[in-house]
């Protein structure tokens, strides 16, 4: 267990230190997403949409920052690690690949949280978003479990992206826009209709956003997909399922890599 935690700490370190060592990244990573959020806020204002919709956009922006980190910092990571030559040392080390991925996830959560806090503070201040949290403990729990489910999904994708063998940036790009749409990043996901919104619930971001919106903007319950406690339950199940699948695909990736030689041998 100590060895596992040491490996987690070791792999989390570059992400934590990266966030602190390159403050200019934080500025751009906060400022640029805020510009795109502003566009949605102004659209809602011009349409005289309910005020809580502006809050939806800010919350969507915060959670999207995590989703982008899951895609570019988790799902694509083994591909980049292969390209730079780190992956072979990760496989060769006694530490499990699960511990390496857990370190990436924790480090990624830390670096993204600094950005998310920036978006939250600036967004609420600029657009005077009124938040009234009804149940802070439940909100915190849902936020944490939502992150766990999203990063577990990222762990699962990390092996799959490598197995699919395409350029990682292409695959990541493919997952960006559809997820923005299906998760209801800037609108209540209920608007997609019962079938599509239920199907979209396999994306942790969809359930997490819906539950957190209800807890932060109580007047928006009429737009909610389901009860937050139920969403918490589904998010917990998704976390377990994605972690299990991540483990299965990790073994599969390692096995295919070793038998076919396609994972680490660049000329194949």
């Amino acid at each position, binding site marked *: 267990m100590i060895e596992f935690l040491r490996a987690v700490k070791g792999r989390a370190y570059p992400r934590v230190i990266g966030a602190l060592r390159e403050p200019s990244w934080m500025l751009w990573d906060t400022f640029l997403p805020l510009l795109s959020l502003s566009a949605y806020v102004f659209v809602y204002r011009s349409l005289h949409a309910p005020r809580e919709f502006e809050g939806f956009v800010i919350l969507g922006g915060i959670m999207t920052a995590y989703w982008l980190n899951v895609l570019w910092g988790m799902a694509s990571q083994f591909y980049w690690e292969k390209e730079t030559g780190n992956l072979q040392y990760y496989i060769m080390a006694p*530490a499990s690949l699960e511990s390496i991925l857990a370190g990436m996830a924790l480090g990624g959560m830390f670096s993204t949280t600094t950005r998310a806090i920036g978006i939250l503070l600036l967004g609420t201040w600029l657009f005077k978003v009124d938040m009234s949290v009804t149940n802070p403990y439940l909100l915190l729990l849902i936020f944490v479990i939502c992150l766990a489910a999203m990063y577990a999904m990222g762990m699962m994708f990390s092996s799959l992206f490598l197995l699919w063998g395409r350029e990682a940036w292409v695959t990541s790009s493919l997952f960006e826009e559809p997820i923005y749409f299906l998760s209801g990043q800037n609108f209540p996901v209920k608007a997609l209709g019962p079938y599509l919104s239920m199907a979209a619930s396999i994306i942790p971001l969809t359930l997490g956003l819906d539950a957190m919106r209800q807890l932060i903007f109580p007047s928006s319950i009429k737009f909610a997909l389901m009860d937050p406690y139920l969403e918490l339950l589904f998010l917990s199940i998704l976390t377990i399922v994605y972690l299990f699948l991540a483990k299965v695909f990790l073994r599969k990736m390692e096995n295919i890599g070793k038998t076919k030689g396609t994972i680490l041998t660049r000329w194949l």
Partner: protein
Amino acid sequence: MYAIEVRNLWRIFKTRDGVVEALRDVNLKIKKGELFGLLGPNGAGKTTLIRILTTLLLPTKGEAYVWGYSTATEERKIRPIINMVSGGEYSGYGLLTVKENLWMFSQFYGIPGKVAKRRIEYLARRLKFEDILNKKVRNLSTGQRQKMNVARAFLTDPKVIFLDEPTLGLDVEVARVIRDFVKEWLLENDERTVLLTTRYMHEAEELCDRIAIINEGRIIALDTSDNLKKLVSREFSLVLRIHPKINISWINKIERVQKYLTREEENGLRVRIIMSREESIADVVDRIIKHGAKISYLKKEEPTLEDVFLKLTGRGLE
């Protein structure tokens, strides 16, 4: 028990263009405490063999053991006791300092922080890179980077270390520091074992207790450096620089010329000929001049491992 044992090992890759036999019936026994060299040109199968021994690849046929453990089924027992350095590798993260990178890799081996710190300082002193410990990796030169990579591998105090062309592309001074360090490291403990792959014959000669020559996936000779050179003890090498470039395929027809190797240079050719009779030198010179070329350099040399390789395979090492 051997540090490394390989029995009838085959590795076949299926590619879009067909089948590649990277290793063909390789057999090796490397004793504990030995510095064993694998000498061969690019694509000979050196890296494939190392990948199998470091548990990164499974053999297609045959068996491989490290410290008595099967690389196919007991990788969990092998991984804590091995490590590897590759030439020209870019492991680590550019925004971390050298010290931070080394500490990070030590954590994947469960080394306590204080022990890691002590070992990093020790290795930095031994490999002469104390001055760059706090420098970011992205700002390192190739040589500095490779010193860090070597430290990364030795930091875990492995029983068996795989050095896959560790001095590839390095300047003479850095390569010498690394070679000296490897020799001293081995002397500190009787059981430490090194498998070195290289295409530099002088490196193999200087470091290795025994050398296997590998070509097209097969071990074609295995012995000490001195014994291998006995394979060409009755021959000598004639090295020439001629210009302009001419076709010298006729040179094989000269009596006692056994093999030859050419390398294109600016405005000419560098030719290495293995021959067994000094009288034939005049014939070679005469024929080159008759073909309209000039000789700007000519030297008779004692046989080297490259000559052994040339004699056995008909091609050069680089």
